């Protein structure tokens, strides 16, 4: 009896340590991969008939990639190609992405659209793909050496940050000579999109709005309730807070809830990022001063189009090496048609 109790305790203790280790690695349990869909279109005027186009994205769970999938599905169907859409369910990391790319390459696609989760770690995968005769395009992020990549199509996060600064300034009625306090809610210190948006935001504030002081930043670890706690405490700490830049959808949700609960809707300017459907609705009610929307569907369409042009042997001189798709500012002046167009699918 005693022995078995001890061994049980041992198991539990080991389990506890293991769970802490799991947490330390920041890894989720879902390291497996899921094939999301594969459909083949049958458009008559297709230039890509019978070709296989593979898409390997960052993290399936992100609405950004869901919106991208819509563009990819549309365009491959239109071009008559078969789409292989894959990526890790949750984790945005090279460790989980590299095996997925290998698996996709084993299916011998004709073209590969890769959203590299790390510019260097994914470089060998691009080399491998090109050696196997696969045409490669990058979307959103790119590998370090672009020489073997047909085209790189991206939204501009720094530009998005700068547009957020403009939107905040408009929202608070910025006047030179007046001091304003603004905070920024981020997801993590290291997420590259966060870093680029924050840099763009800071640069625009420094250049155009010297009266705005960024008094604090905090991290939500992708959890809206943590973002909510951060904003609640900021509102206590800075009773005269003028504006919040919520750098992604999660921070937007947490901040929107905090402002509504404290009755500060419209009193504190809130600029969010990403056009989640339920956040877009909050523009109308004045909770969000503005949302910065990206256009992932267009990014995907252009990438597929470029690959198909190349694969069909047509003239490729029209394909640019790098294409930047600008961000869009959605606010109360945006038309309903545009709001619908830029809202991510969910």
């Amino acid at each position: 009896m005693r022995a078995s109790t001890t061994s049980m305790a041992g198991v539990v203790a080991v389990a506890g340590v293991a769970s802490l280790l799991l947490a330390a690695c920041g890894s989720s349990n879902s390291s497996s991969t899921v094939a999301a869909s594969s459909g083949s279109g049958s458009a008559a005027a297709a230039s890509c008939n019978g070709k296989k186009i593979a898409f390997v994205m960052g993290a399936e769970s992100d609405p950004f990639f869901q919106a991208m999938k819509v563009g990819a599905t549309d365009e491959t169907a239109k071009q008559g190609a078969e789409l292989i859409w894959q990526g890790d369910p949750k984790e945005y990391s090279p460790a989980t992405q590299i095996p997925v790319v290998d698996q996709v390459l084993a299916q011998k696609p004709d073209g590969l659209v890769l959203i590299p989760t790390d510019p260097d770690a994914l470089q060998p995968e691009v080399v491998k793909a090109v050696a196997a005769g696969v045409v490669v395009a990058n979307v959103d992020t790119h590998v370090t050496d672009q020489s073997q990549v047909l085209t790189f199509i991206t939204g501009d996060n720094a530009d998005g940050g700068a547009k957020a600064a403009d939107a905040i300034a408009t929202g608070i009625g910025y006047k030179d000579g007046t001091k304003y306090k603004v905070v920024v809610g981020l997801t993590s210190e290291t997420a590259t999109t966060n870093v680029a948006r924050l840099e763009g935001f800071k640069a625009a504030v420094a250049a155009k709005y010297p009266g705005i002081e960024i008094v604090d930043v905090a991290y939500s670890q992708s959890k809206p309730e943590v973002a909510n706690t951060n904003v609640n405490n900021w509102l206590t700490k800075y009773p005269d807070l003028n504006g919040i830049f919520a750098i992604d959808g999660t921070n937007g949700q947490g901040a929107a809830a905090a402002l509504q609960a404290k009755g500060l809707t419209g009193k504190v300017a809130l600029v969010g990022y990403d056009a989640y459907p339920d956040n877009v609705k909050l523009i109308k009610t004045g909770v969000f001063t503005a949302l910065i929307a990206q256009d992932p569907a267009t990014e995907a369409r252009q990438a597929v189009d470029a690959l198909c042009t190349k694969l069909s042997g047509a003239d490729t001189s029209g394909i640019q090496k790098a294409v930047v798709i600008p961000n869009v500012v959605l606010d109360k002046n945006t038309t309903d048609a545009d709001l619908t167009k830029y809202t991510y699918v969910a």
Partner: protein
Amino acid sequence: MATTDVKQPSSPVTQVVAPTSRLKSALANQQLLLLIVWLVMVLGFSLKSPIFFSVDVAGNIFADWGPLVLIALGELIVVISAGIDLSVGANVGFSGVIAAFAMKALTTAGVASTPTLLIGVLVCVVVGSLIGLINALLINYAKLVPFIATLVTLGAASGMSLVLTKGAPIMGGPAGGIMLSVPWIGPFSKPVLVVIVVVAVMWAFLHKARFGRYTYAIGSNAFAARAAGIDVKRHIVKIYMLSGFLAGLAGFFFYLRLGGGAPTSGYGMELDAIAAVVIGGAALAGGVGRVSGTVLGALILTTVTSGLIIVGVDPSWKRVVVAVLIAVAATLQALRKSEGGAS
């Protein structure tokens, strides 16, 4: 079995069913220690930043404490039974998301706010309890150790949350929901007051009722508990379902705070719950732990979170502070155990 029990008059089961006064006082010390740690924290943060000592900040701290203490109490019961429940964080997100879909549909159909919210809380606790039931079935009949069983449901629940929502928050429920999370009496919102009642009920369950005696008995020595006539499998079902129920309730708490469900809500929160339980003096080996310790453990964790933001220290330091607290609490626990063994 019975003869072995006779040969060991000081078997763990008897020790726990009737705790020795020394064990009792040692545990009481831990609670007192925690209270002192918490008061020192409050004093320190207040000295550094006087605004910390305000009803507003207390309101923020209790708003965080509510859902955490709910899942931590579920975790406490599981830990006392010598198990572990890794699924509570994912359960919070999943139950919140399912309830958010239900409440959105009801609101769209024109159902009034109050009945919608009542159905919402019901959906949360039913979904939460079902996940707990699956945990128990995996443990009892698939013979998985609790760590693996609840790792399975963690993955399934958090994955399903993402699949169903496609990663986006689900709002569009009753408009008044969010205002319920606003402080009502002093720093306490209505949901926080409900949580305090739940804490009291859990205290009675664990320390005054047969449910608690069985739980301690199973955690101290499952074989002896079975020999003593406890239906261990049945009790395991109750324990994990209760943990799931509390996680579902926490899911609803978050729904009210955010005015919507989010698939990433509660992600990784099982570790905060385990931290609160361990800081509160429970032993992962089972058989030891008090509601009061867990309540204080959760309060210390949420005080650190708000305190660091208010004084303007990088919140990443919270992890370091929590790590130190866990190390100290676990060391105290180990010392107490070795002291007990020497007698």
